C-alpha cells in the first residue's frame, strides 16, 4: 500500500513548571493511504500529541525532534500551495501541470528534494534555524516533503465540538468559510456546498441548520457539524481525536457509523484517536498502542485483539468491561 505519511523518530517535549516533560519518545510509524488507523492509549500516553504533531497544531513552545514526511504525490495540488516569494519558479508550474493533467505533478519530487533543509515552508522560512536549548523550537520544520495544509489536506475533529465551533457564527458560515478558503469557491457556491455537507452528515433540515448557531444544537449534532467542516475541503486525512468520547453511547455509535461511511465514500485515510480499545477495534484496520509516549505495539486489528504481543496491550484488553465480561460482583463471591 502507498504510504500517506511517514513519521520517523518523532519526539515531542513540553516545558511544564520549568520541568521538561517528554510527551512522545522516538515514535516511528507509516500511515497508509486509505487505511483506518486507530491510535489508542491511556491519559498521558501521547496519543493527542501525535495527532496534533501530524496536524501541525503543537504549541509553539513544544520541542520537536524527528520527521513527519509526506511522500510526493499524496497531497492535492493547489495553485496556492506556496507564496511566490518562497517558491518563485516551481509554484506556478505546479499549478498548471496539475490542472491540465488532473493528476499529481512530476514536479513534486523536486519539491520534496529541495525541502530537505525545511526552508520551503512559508511557516518555517522566517524562523528556520532558530533554536533554543539545542532543539529546533518551531513546529513545522520537522515536516518534510510536501507541506500539508490543515483544513485542506487534513481534517481535524476534536473531542469537544462546543470549543471547536465559533459560538457567535452561524453554522453555515463556519462550513462555507472552509470551502471558500480552501476550494476558492464563491461564497454563494460555498454556502451551497455547506448545505450538501450538512446533508452528508445527516443533519435534519440542512437549510435551517445553516442559519443555526452552535448553542441551538445538541452535542451529537454539533459534532456532526464539526465533521462537516473537517471534510469540507476534501482532505486526504481525517483525524478524529476522541471525537466521540463526550457523546452518550447511542450517539457515539451513530457518529462512528457516520465517520466510517464518509471515510469510505471519500476515500479518506482515517486516524482515530481513542482511549477505548473496543471502539477502536470496531472501526480500525490497524491499531497502534501508545504508552508513556512510546509506540509499543502496532498491528492489524485482529492481531492486536486476539494475539497481542505486549503484556500492556493484553492488560488493556482485559480491563475492558464488555457486556460478556464476568461481573466484578461475582469475582469475589459475595452478593447482596
Amino acid at each position, binding site marked *: 500500500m502507498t504510504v500517506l505519511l511517514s513519521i520517523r523518530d518523532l519526539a515531542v517535549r513540553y516545558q511544564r513548571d520549568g520541568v521538561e516533560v517528554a510527551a512522545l519518545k522516538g515514535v516511528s510509524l507509516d500511515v497508509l493511504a486509505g487505511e483506518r488507523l486507530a491510535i489508542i492509549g491511556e491519559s498521558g500516553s501521547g496519543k493527542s500529541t501525535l495527532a496534533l504533531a501530524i496536524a501541525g497544531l503543537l504549541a509553539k513552545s513544544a520541542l520537536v525532534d524527528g520527521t513527519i514526511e509526506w511522500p510526493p504525490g499524496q497531497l492535492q495540488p493547489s495553485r496556492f500551495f506556496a507564496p511566490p516569494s518562497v517558491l518563485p519558479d516551481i509554484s506556478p508550474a505546479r499549478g498548471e501541470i496539475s490542472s491540465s493533467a488532473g493528476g499529481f505533478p512530476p514536479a513534486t519530487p523536486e519539491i520534496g528534494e529541495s525541502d530537505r533543509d525545511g526552508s520551503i515552508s512559508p511557516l518555517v522560512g522566517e524562523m528556520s534555524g532558530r533554536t533554543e536549548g539545542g532543539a529546533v523550537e518551531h513546529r513545522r520544520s520537522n515536516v518534510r516533503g510536501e507541506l500539508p495544509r490543515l483544513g485542506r489536506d487534513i481534517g481535524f475533529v476534536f473531542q469537544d465540538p462546543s470549543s471547536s465551533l465559533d459560538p457567535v457564527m452561524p453554522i453555515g458560515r463556519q462550513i462555507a468559510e472552509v470551502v471558500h478558503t480552501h476550494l476558492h469557491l464563491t461564497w454563494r457556491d460555498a454556502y451551497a456546498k455547506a448545505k450538501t455537507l450538512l446533508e452528508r452528515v445527516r443533519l435534519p433540515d440542512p437549510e435551517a441548520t445553516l442559519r443555526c448557531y452552535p448553542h441551538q444544537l445538541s452535542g451529537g449534532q454539533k459534532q456532526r457539524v464539526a465533521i462537516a467542516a473537517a471534510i469540507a475541503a476534501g482532505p486526504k486525512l481525517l483525524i478524529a481525536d476522541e471525537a466521540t468520547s463526550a457523546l452518550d453511547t447511542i450517539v457515539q455509535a451513530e457518529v462512528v457509523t457516520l465517520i466510517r461511511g464518509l471515510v469510505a465514500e471519500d476515500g479518506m485515510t482515517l486516524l482515530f484517536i481513542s482511549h477505548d480499545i*473496543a471502539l477502536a477495534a470496531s472501526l480500525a484496520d490497524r491499531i497502534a498502542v501508545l504508552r508513556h509516549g512510546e509506540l509499543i505495539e502496532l498491528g492489524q486489528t485482529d492481531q492486536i485483539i486476539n494475539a497481542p504481543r505486549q503484556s500492556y496491550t493484553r492488560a488493556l484488553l482485559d480491563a475492558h468491561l464488555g457486556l460478556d465480561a464476568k461481573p466484578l460482583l461475582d469475582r469475589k463471591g459475595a452478593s447482596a
Partner: protein
Amino acid sequence: MTVLAVSNLAKRYRRGGKPFAAVDEVSFEIGPAETLALAGPSGSGKSTIAKLVLRLIEPDAGRIDFEGGDFLALSGGSLRARRARLQMVFQDPLAAFNPRATVARVLDDPLRIHAIASRAERPLRIAALLERVGLETNLATRAIHEISGGQRQRVAIARAIATRPSLIVLDEAVSALDVSVRGQILELLLDLQRQERIAYLFISHDLGVIRAIAHRVVILDAGKIAESGDARTVIANPQSAVGKALVAATPKLVRTSQEAS
C-alpha cells in the same frame, strides 16, 4: 428494609418556553449494601434524579424517603445532620474540590463540619481514611491539583465515606478514568460496600460498567423509567426500545482467543 425509597418523583423545566419533564413519575428503592444503577442516554434524567435525591434541587412532585424518614420534610439543622449519611462522588473531582486545597484539608472538612472527630483526632482519622481507599498517608500534604486523576477520585471516595454514610450517589464517577484505574476504583467501591454496608446509586452511561458492579438497573428514557430489573438480566435481554438501543450501541470486543479473565 430500604435505605432510599423514591416514589412518583417529578421535575419539570421550561425549555424554549415549553414545559418539559426532566423526571416524570419515577419510583425505585435501594436496600442496604445494594447498588442500583441508573442508565440512559443524555437527557434521560439520570443526573436530575441524582440532584433531587441529594436535594441540590427540589422536586415538583413525589416523595423521597431516606433511612425510613421523609427526606423532603427536613430542613436546616436536621437536613444538614441527615446529609452526613448521604454522600456523593462526581465525575470530575477536580471540579468538586477547591483546587488549592491539600488532600488533608479536603478530608478534614467533613470530619470537622459533622463533628465526627476532635481537632486532635483528625490527623489520625485522615490517615486512616487514606489507607482505607488505598492511598499513601504522606499524600495528605499534597495539593489536589498535583495528584493523578485516579488518586483524586480515591480522595473523593475517602471524603464520601468520612461521615459513615448509608448511601453514596456516584454520578459518572468512573467515566473519566483510564480503564486500568477504573477497574481498581470499582474494586474499591465493592470492598467498601461489603465492609461498611453502603448502598450506591450508581449513575453511568456505560452498560459494561453497570453490568460489572450493579445489582439492579433502571433504564431511563426522556425522564421516565423504560424498564428495570436485575442488571445482568436486563442487559442480556432488554425489552424497551431504549434498552435495546443502548445494548446495541455498546462497543463489543470480539476476541476469538478468549482467555479467562
